[in-house]
């Protein structure tokens, strides 16, 4: 089961995600990301994936859609906390390099 909670800093939203991102749960992630980017117009959205054990192609598709939305709006989408499973899937998709990836939360929210 996917759980998403939001923390709000100055001009930044951190979304803490835990669980598996798959066909059943990726619409929830997509909705949460697009809400921050399109509706709330947050300039920087940080996705904490430390507690994500699995991501499939529908999850990658949600991330790509959010990335495109952020580019269209001139905002930033930053991922951090990628474990081996998530990193492998992004590498397999050859999309790892298109995302802005930070090693730590401090790096992700640094001015």
């Amino acid at each position: 089961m996917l759980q998403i909670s939001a923390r709000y800093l100055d001009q930044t939203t951190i979304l803490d995600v835990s669980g598996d991102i798959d066909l059943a749960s990726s619409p929830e992630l997509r909705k949460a990301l697009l809400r921050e980017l399109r509706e709330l117009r947050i300039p920087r959205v940080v996705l904490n994936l430390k507690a994500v054990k699995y991501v499939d192609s529908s999850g990658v598709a949600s991330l790509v859609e959010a990335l495109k939305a952020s580019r269209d709006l001139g905002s930033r989408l930053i991922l951090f906390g990628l474990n081996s499973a998530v990193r492998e899937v992004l590498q397999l998709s050859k999309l790892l390099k298109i995302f802005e990836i930070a090693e730590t939360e401090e790096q992700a929210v640094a001015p």
Partner: protein
Amino acid sequence: MSRGSLLLKVELRSNPETLCIVRNALGQLAQTFGFSETDCRAVVLAVDEALTNIIRHAYQGKPEQPIEVSFRRIQAARDGVLKPALEIVVEDRGAAVDTTKLCGRPLDDVRSGGLGLHFMRESMDAVEFRRRWHRNQLRMVKLLHGAQPEKGS
């Protein structure tokens, strides 16, 4: 030709909520089979993507439709040498798969979707589709790397 020894056969419905149950069971099976941690994840990803494609495309999101998955231990040839391998066959009764369109997509084309088949092909040693008796049948094979090989005849 021997069909190998059946390890597990699962009948499930085309409900996305069942995917995590299959992943957990398959992860255990792959680990017991002797795959490395990375290969376990590859097998789980390939099967999950296969089921996702069936739910989304063959059954077009319609729930409660039947899917069968069987797992067999087989011997598969690689460079003239027989190696132990895991054979996974996934069957559904949905719309026929147009095999001419199963070519994946250029990965430098940054867009959503179309990754599932690419993930399956990258994760497994063999991926084959066919239509039999009004069913789509997907056969995937993953070789057990590092296992003691047997000489092929």
